[in-house]
């Protein structure tokens, strides 16, 4: 077997073990989930260096073992009232399209397995702001998990529009 084939197979296995698994976290008592494949690690809240002229939900940058990554407060991102950070506050480090980003969430709950048949597309409401970040809805034991689209969370036009003005 060539090196390449092996690698492809390894990736397949990795994908397989990660498929259908979601990390859930709380923001204001609502459960959100993101696909586990995006998650690099979970760290506690750290001193954040603020950066001028960025949207308010980008809290600043942190030093993650020598690597500088931006952190985003998901609360503010979802237009909710900011709260003081406490010892339950977590930063979920995600990597999407080669961009590392920390997501500040109220607290992290668990890793869930959600079968494909329990995942549905969110109803089209065209109202709530947060709707645009929600990709799918997962049902687990009568609970509803809002599965977030990491891509949309990160690649948003607002930041770009802002940098255009600057």
């Amino acid at each position, binding site marked *: 077997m060539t090196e390449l084939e092996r690698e492809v197979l390894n990736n397949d296995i990795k994908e397989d073990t990660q498929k259908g698994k979601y990390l859930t976290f709380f923001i204001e008592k609502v459960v959100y989930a993101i696909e586990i494949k995006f998650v690099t690690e979970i760290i506690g809240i750290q*001193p954040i*260096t*603020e*950066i*001028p*002229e*960025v949207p308010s939900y*980008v809290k*600043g*940058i*942190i*030093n993650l073992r*020598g690597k*500088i*990554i*931006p952190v985003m407060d998901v609360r503010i991102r979802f237009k909710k009232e900011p709260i003081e950070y406490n010892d339950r506050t977590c930063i979920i480090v995600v990597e999407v399209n080669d*961009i*590392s*980003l920390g997501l500040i969430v109220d607290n992290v709950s668990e890793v869930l397995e959600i079968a494909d048949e329990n995942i549905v597309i969110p109803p089209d409401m065209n109202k709530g702001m947060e709707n645009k970040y929600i990709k799918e809805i997962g049902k687990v034991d009568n609970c509803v998990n809002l599965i977030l689209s990491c891509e949309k969370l*990160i690649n948003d036009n607002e*930041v*770009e529009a802002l*940098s255009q003005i*600057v």
Partner: protein
Amino acid sequence: MNGEYTNDSMLEMFIYETTELISQLENIALDSEESNALETQINEVFRIVHTIKGSAAMMDYNNISSLAHSLEDAFYYIRENHPQNVDYSSLTDVVLRSIDYIKNVVAMIQSGTSQPDAQTDSEAKEIVKEIKDFLSLLKGVPVVEEPKNEANNVESTNSGIDEDAQKEASGENEFMALLCFEDGCEMENIRAFNVLNNLENVVDVISTSPPKVPGNENTISEIKQNGFEIRFKTDLSFEDMKNHLSSTLFLKELYLEPVNAENEIQQANENQEEKAKENNSQTNTEKPEARTDSVAKAQTASPVAPVNVKQSMISVNLEKLDKLMDLVGELVISQEMVVQNSELEGLILNDFNKASRQLRKVTNEIQDAVMSIRMVPISGTFNKMHRIVRDMSKKLEKEVKLEIIGENTEVDKNVIEHLTDPLMHIIRNSMDHGIENVDDRLKAGKPSFGNVTLEAKDEGGDVCIIIRDDGKGLDRDKILNKAKEQGLVKENETLTDTDIYSLIFLPGFSTKKQVTEFSGRGVGMDVVNNNMEKIGGKALVDSTPGVGTSITLKIPLTLAIIEGMKVKVGKSIFVIPITSIKESFRVDESSIVLDDCNNSEMIMLRGECLPILRLHEFYNVKSETTKLKEGIIIVVENESKIKCLFADKVIGEQQVVVKALPKYIKNVKGICGCTVMGDGSVCLISDVSGLFKN
């Protein structure tokens, strides 16, 4: 032998060597075209072509080696016969074509298409034929020069009269050569085999010690210890052989001495005389004597002192250098972590301070040393442009002279990599759009040939590269109209000239209606902009209609470590590069000048009125210190403009390792990067030039 001996490091070495050599050859070829002479550099050319041939043959790239071989033939003829009728321009054409071919193949090898396919095969043959044609064209006329040659270069006459005779007449002189390779050059057996391979065409090898080098790993240590001994017969002179052998790569020492010279001479003379009579009706009585002479000369010179071919340069993988750089960065951070440790605060530590100063001095030196390793003169990149200018002026039928100033300016290796493409595109643009046709130029009262100047200079912490042409300049209105057409500019927007000229850097922007081979798709200038962004540089355009355009690339000298002053603003700490700080002081209430209509504050300093910029306002940071006399004023200078920055307090000086802001955050006005402090926290680095833009 390909499968047997090729391994990655050898291949890498081959690619590296060949690329280097080819660019050298390219420069020489272009030089020779310009000065219409090759005399001084012919030996250099020989060495290069020969090495390429040798290493290509070793790696079993027969196309390259046969191509190099025929090039060698051509240069051999020129060197030995000094023909007066060489058309250096067409010689350069041929050489450049070969260079392109080799480049191509090397690129293919590099990308993994290891064996050149049939197409390059035929291409190689074509070029070989071209070289042969060129050579026969040269040889067609040189009858006139033959007598002159005989008079002043007796040795070469032999080869000049009849090459076949020369080949047949091998074996006049028997030599013993002992080659010692440099320590640690590795693969001694293959190198030895390569030597043999190179000799194949010119000598008859009698014996070697150790025998049977290829494929025999055991011979490596033997060669390492005792060197590689070859006994061979040749008709070349002692000097020729010495030159030939000393071009071997990684050669440490070379001993060469004739064997049984006395007996051989006699024989050689006889042979030579017979051959001469047989092959050439034009008897040349001078020849045998000359031969004797040369051998005798060799004899008196022997045994020769070892020829020391010492190599003082090594090539290092860039990755290793990057790693070293990172480590030095970490070292600086750790040093600050120790020296500025908060646990030391308030203690009186005379010895500790002394020692830490010493440490700082040493780390400073390490840093400088690492930095200087990575610094390379920009000349290599600049010289590549000669080729582009030459090719384009031929194709566009414009006469263009390229002038290069300050090519010894040194820039970080990483930066240089991003310079070649932008320079190429800018020069193409200048030549295609900027420089006018010869007729138009003469009409405009300019000299018929256009001038393109490439200039590099140090300017503080930046390097400026200026590309200037004396063409027709940018057409302001045309650019503006086009931009409006494409919706890049709104109808009623007012723009300064600089703004308008900068539009040419936008992707897809081109005022050209027709797409030519060189320009028109609007890609080139976008490449410039992209590359500049990557290395934190800027591209500025200036143009005067009818007089010319100049594009200035401002790039940071290095991307790594700067001396900075930490200042506190509110809760945040900003680092201001020391190089731009002039002074700092506490302000006196009486020297503050308020301009109420503009709502701006100024300060009188030694009779000068300077504007104040409140950092907490600029960066939008909450700060308790808002009264000017409570904080501190830091006077900074950028491009001969001065501003007074107002901060809460100055914390101190520190070396910081510049890290880029995460891509996600994009550009922030007034911030050029961030750095990790000794305690692991992150600080922002002020971009002083950004503070001046409003």
